[in-house]
């Protein structure tokens, strides 16, 4: 490590979202009432590019907070507005919130975005963009994907139905292109301007037992054609696939990570690309660790790959021996500092760590 800071949140979070002004947002996902949404100001050590020495201000500060009656499973800020959107069980409706940090430190609830709730609907996955207008892309199933204009609540797009599998993630590649990932591993590209068209990418290898998939797309790489960035998919068995969206009929790479089986549900599977490092990605959700990989050397053979770094901090932290070992619920990369990541675990811990590139690699 070059640096490691550990913090303890009052309640564990399963999301870490970046907001304007280097703010970080976390939220509770407990089943009972009283979940908090917290917008945090990171300590100055994290805001500057260069890591300083013993800085007096080493703590996160809660800038503002809100109370959610539901567990918060997903949260996205709506760019260019002071709003954010959350989702969580028991249904696929979205809650809208107003953040006005200058006036008050309370994040206020604004009226929700309702959705039709059929049977078998779980919570909605969300993505936001402000291109033509502030939009939120949401849906819990492949046949329920829609884009709602946040301010007017008008529905501006509904995806054609190609099945009713549960979604594990969705993303805007640009203001017209959507990427939808199902829990089965199915990946679809859609164009907002052509609701009926849905292009499917190469399927993931089928497995003997059911496995769950999630995806990671590359944000933050400014000025690059979005579809030139490969999309990564991760399965609960540790399979990793990279797909170039310009050539969706084949895999760019196929590899296997050596990870334990995640046991209960694999609901915290998380994969993300490093915004400031070429071809590096991180995965978590199997245990108390976060793995960082360099994908440059990967091929399509599906062989096992070694991580270039493993963060084990969460596995050692906390009250020893009380119940289950902590499970990493989410991780994210720092937007500017190339090797800094933030990760959170089920015991409420929040780590910020900066790893050292092992010798011998570029």
């Amino acid at each position, binding site marked *: 490590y070059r640096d490691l800071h550990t913090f303890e949140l*009052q309640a564990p979070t399963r999301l870490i979202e970046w907001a304007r002004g280097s703010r970080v947002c976390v939220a509770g996902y407990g089943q009972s009432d009283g979940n908090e949404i917290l917008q945090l100001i990171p300590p100055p050590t994290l805001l500057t590019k260069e890591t300083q020495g*013993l800085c007096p201000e080493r703590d996160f*500060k809660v800038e503002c907070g809100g109370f959610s009656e539901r567990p918060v499973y997903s949260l996205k800020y709506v760019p260019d507005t002071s709003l954010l959107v959350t989702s969580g069980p028991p249904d696929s409706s979205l809650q809208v919130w107003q953040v006005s940090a200058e006036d008050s430190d309370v994040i206020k609830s604004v009226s929700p975005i309702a959705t039709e709730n059929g049977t078998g609907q779980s919570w909605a996955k969300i993505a936001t963009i402000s291109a033509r207008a502030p939009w939120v892309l949401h849906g819990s199933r492949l046949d329920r994907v829609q884009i709602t204009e946040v301010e007017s609540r008008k529905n501006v797009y509904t995806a054609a139905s190609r099945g009713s599998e549960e979604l594990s993630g969705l993303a805007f590649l640009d203001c017209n292109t959507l990427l939808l990932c199902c829990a089965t591993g199915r990946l679809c590209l859609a164009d907002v301007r052509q609701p009926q068209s849905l292009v499917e990418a190469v399927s993931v290898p089928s497995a003997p037992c059911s496995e769950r998939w999630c995806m990671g797309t590359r944000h933050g790489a400014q000025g690059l054609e979005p579809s030139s960035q490969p999309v990564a998919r991760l399965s609960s068995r540790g399979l990793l696939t990279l797909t170039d969206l310009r050539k969706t009929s084949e895999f760019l790479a196929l590899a296997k990570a050596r990870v334990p089986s995640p046991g209960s549900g694999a609901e915290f599977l998380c994969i993300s690309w490093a915004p400031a490092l070429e071809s590096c990605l991180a995965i978590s959700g199997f245990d108390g660790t976060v793995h960082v990989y360099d994908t440059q050397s990967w091929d399509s053979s599906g062989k096992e790959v070694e991580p270039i770094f493993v963060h084990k901090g969460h596995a050692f932290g906390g009250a020893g021996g009380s119940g289950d070992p902590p499970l990493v619920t989410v991780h994210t990369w720092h937007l500017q500092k190339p090797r800094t990541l933030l990760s959170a675990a089920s015991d409420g811990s929040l780590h910020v760590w900066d790893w050292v590139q092992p010798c011998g690699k570029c």
Partner: protein
Amino acid sequence: VSGVFCWGAGAGQDVGRSCILVSIAGKNVMLDCGMHMGYNDDRRFPDFSYITQNGRLTDFLDCVIISHFHLDHCGALPYFSEMVGYDGPIYMTHPTKAICPILLEDYRKITVDKKGETNFFTSQMIKDCMKKVVAVHLHQTVQVDEELEIKAYYAGHVLGAAMFQIKVGCESVVYTGDYNMTPDRHLGAAWIDKCRPDLLITESTYATTIRDSKRCRERDFLKKVHETVERGGKVLIPVFALGRAQELCILLETFWERMNLKAPIYFSTGLTEKANHYYKLFITWTNQKIRKTFVQRNMFEFKHIKAFDRAFADNPGPMVVFATPGMLHAGQSLQIFRKWAGNEKNMVIMPGYCVQGTVGHKILSGQRKLEMEGRQILEVKMQVEYMSFSAHADAKGIMQLIRQAEPRNVLLVHGEAKKMEFLKQKIEQEFHVSCYMPANGETTTILTNPCIPVDISLGLLKRETAIGPLPDAKKPKLMHGTLLMKDNSFRLVSPEQALKELGLAEHQLRFTCRVHIQDPRKEHETVLRVYNHLKGILKDYSVQHLPDGSITVESILIQATAHSEDQGTKVLLVSWTYQDEELGSYLTSLLKKGLPQSTP
């Protein structure tokens, strides 16, 4: 109106100094008397004009309580007692009483001698002020006067810091001062019992902080020290005699042992004596670990830490030195600093806050050229680091304390008002209590529900407990009786006994109402119709048709007579006692609606 009035002459939207006035059941108490460390003029002292308007402070205030020795809680005390004028008692814990004057004197020296200020308290004033201090022990109930009592609880944070409970009759307030809910290497965590005060006044400055773990801070500290020593540099750690110094020593000793390091660590002698002395006096104020260390060996007989001699500062090679005073404003630490400042291999680590005007404060602000005595310029090439180990309660800690004490109301003292709305809502939602955040100078009134003890007559008690389910210790039981207030005593007796004692006769109230019904039939037929009608509707009640032609519904009497002028109209007389008012009114309105057409 019974209440607790609270106004902050200092704290409350003003980070920097604490001074709160509480008025509880007619008693006036001042909580802390802090000095604002950021100002150089009169703004550093609280504005006491709020109180002096009422006359002499000594007459107005029943006592003053100081929570701990930090200057932002006691720095204005000599000014207050000697220059503004107060002769009443000042309460604080024993360690606070011992340490306060040292810090006050240090601060006075810096302000007057170094900065040449004139409107400041003198050394004599500090001494005179401390003569008014009454020291208290933890959990000891101290009677300030017949009605007012106070009790100190362990607060952690620094040596001798306490939270105070102030009680008058059955109304109480708890003031936390600065506290910490997580133990550290030399202090335990704050603790209070379920005292259920009417009001809990707590600092919330750090409520919005999510601290990084102590392990990380310590690890970084050790890394810095190690790096400096490895490259042959010298590390200076200016400390106040107690508390953090002890903690850092234990930390370094353990690290040195584990890493098998050879560089010497020194403690300046003045420090050793003073520290030893205080620790012997206040060993019960530290935590278990320290106590064990102290018992097994003399606290400063570390394997790797030795006593310092002035001459050692000139020795070549790496070393670590702990020296007083903590802000580099005078004495040995400043001497050492001057010797070592010019070498960039060396490092100075400031372990806490430094007052403006001190060398410590200057170098932490980034100054690298300092003017010393005799116009000499000192160039600072050594590395300057800051490491704060001082601990305050965060949001989680505040919630824990509220959960322990179970107050009925909470008052937050802090800097900016708007930034505490979230915490306020959080407290209100979780504990269902009211939460206040007054501004500096603002008065907050909290209404309390005092318990009034009342004697209940044995007969009444027996009678009431015989009715209904068995009494449950956890549930309140409603009883009926008559309250007699005579002189200053309250008694609850049965109504009969009250009447007897007061020589009054019991009166009965009876209501009668006439309801007109159209019915050409004979009276007794009308009565029958009414009886059947009522029997059909009032199935749960006892409806009876008596031989004399009247109907009773429970104890209500209904009789029918013909209207004197109009045979077609019958007049129903409905009569009931005060106790049956509800049923009587109901019956009347029911009958007024008329009888159903088809009746047998």
